[in-house]
């Protein structure tokens, strides 16, 4: 746990068809991205990633201590950065977690311009997450 960041350009699993997903999940207004978004399905996540330049996805579980400690940090980052925070409950979305190879929580996955750019298992300090997000915001 708490290891270094593994940067690997994984292909996102699951094909995404823009039209369908956009129809199903209308474009969120800026107000909504001030708070972490709760991902409801794989298509929903794809739509979020496609819609926003920088998205930090938090694969979490209610029973995980470090996930709870991370919660206020992510809320702050959603408020204060231009990045969007998306939360995936691994108990509800087991297959989605599996598709990203999640084997521990929290797992943090960063997307920039629709591409996965970072993946990390274990909580990270708030300032490092902020740097990470801001590093990809142009």
């Amino acid at each position: 746990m708490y290891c270094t960041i593994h940067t690997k350009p994984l292909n996102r699993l699951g094909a995404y068809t823009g039209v369908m997903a956009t129809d199903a999940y209308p474009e969120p207004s800026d107000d909504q991205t001030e708070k972490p978004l709760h991902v409801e399905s794989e298509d929903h996540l794809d739509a979020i990633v496609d819609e926003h330049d920088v998205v930090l996805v938090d694969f979490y579980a209610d029973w995980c201590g470090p996930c709870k400690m991370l919660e206020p940090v992510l809320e702050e980052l959603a408020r204060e950065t231009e990045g969007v925070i998306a939360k995936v409950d691994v108990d509800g979305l087991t297959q989605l977690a599996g598709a990203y190879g999640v084997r521990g929580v929290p797992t943090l996955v960063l997307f920039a311009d629709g591409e996965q750019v970072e993946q990390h298992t274990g909580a990270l300090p708030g300032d490092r997450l902020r740097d990470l997000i801001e590093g990809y915001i142009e």
Partner: protein
Amino acid sequence: MNGDSNAPVRDVVIVGTGVAGLSAAVYAARADLEPLVLEGPEPGGQLTLTTDVENFLGFPEGVGGMELIQRGKEQASRFGAEFVHGTVADATLDDRPFELHLSNGETRRTRALIVATGASARWVGAEGEADLMGYGVSTCATCDGAFHRGDDVLVIGGGDSAMEEALFLTKFADSVTVVHRRDELRASEVMAKRARDHDGVSFRWNSELLEIHGSKDEGVTGVTLISHPDGYPRQKLEASPTGDGPADRAAKTRETGGIEREFLDVGGIFYGVGHVPNTDFLEGTAVELADTGHIETQAGMTTETTLDGVFAAGDVMDPDYRQAITSAGTGSMAALDAEDWLEQPAASGSIAASEAIADD
């Protein structure tokens, strides 16, 4: 570093938000010292990784480690402690006020410093662990156990944390095997008995982890274990003579003769082999560290370190007890010690003041 000599000077900065840091924060806040508390890379510390704490006084039914921490933070905030995210990269402690340089480039200044940075999980040193940490190798059973439903998993270690991990993992895993380098456990009697009596937990004595097999995509697929009838097999493997003469070869056979290697199919590996104190940022300062990396405190009942104005609490200074309740205890002691010290003339900030006292 942007030598920010204009940063406001605090009376006390507490580094760490585990049970020691929080307890120090409650006491310092109640003493109106308006402590600044730096929350680092592992917010809440080791207690956030445990299940129930059964031996904290006042909770006959046990209390969740996470709950204890959240309540502690709430309590410290209520009395006015200020929490910010920040990891101390290094510290300038030669001059007063002290300067803490954070990894995000900021500088914090303080008259008194309480170090409660705790200790982080030790890694075994097996081949492949760095690549697979987070991909089937874990230091947190409560975080990652649920991803091993139906797997055969290993727990490495023989202490209380290892037993707790093993017992927790039986909820998910098909089989849990504790791998320990000796033939007896270090765990407390109650935990050892619970693990030994559990049908889902088995033991491999005198064995150690040598290699972890797998990939980031597949996760962990297996391990190579080594064992020796007298225990500590890795030590014997490393100590074996490397020379090539006949005598060396004979000695090598004698030393490594009893070593056996074995490949096992497992899907998860959980480390419970102790912790390393987080004191890197104090290297090269006047705060003396023990060989183990722990902060040395002065003899007797005190949290004073070898540098006036720097106090230490919790696992970062305690290689022996390492309990939630003892950390809470030393945390409160550090705040009281800091409060006491701040009332002395030496704490006012000028070197002249401390020299004047030395001259008396």
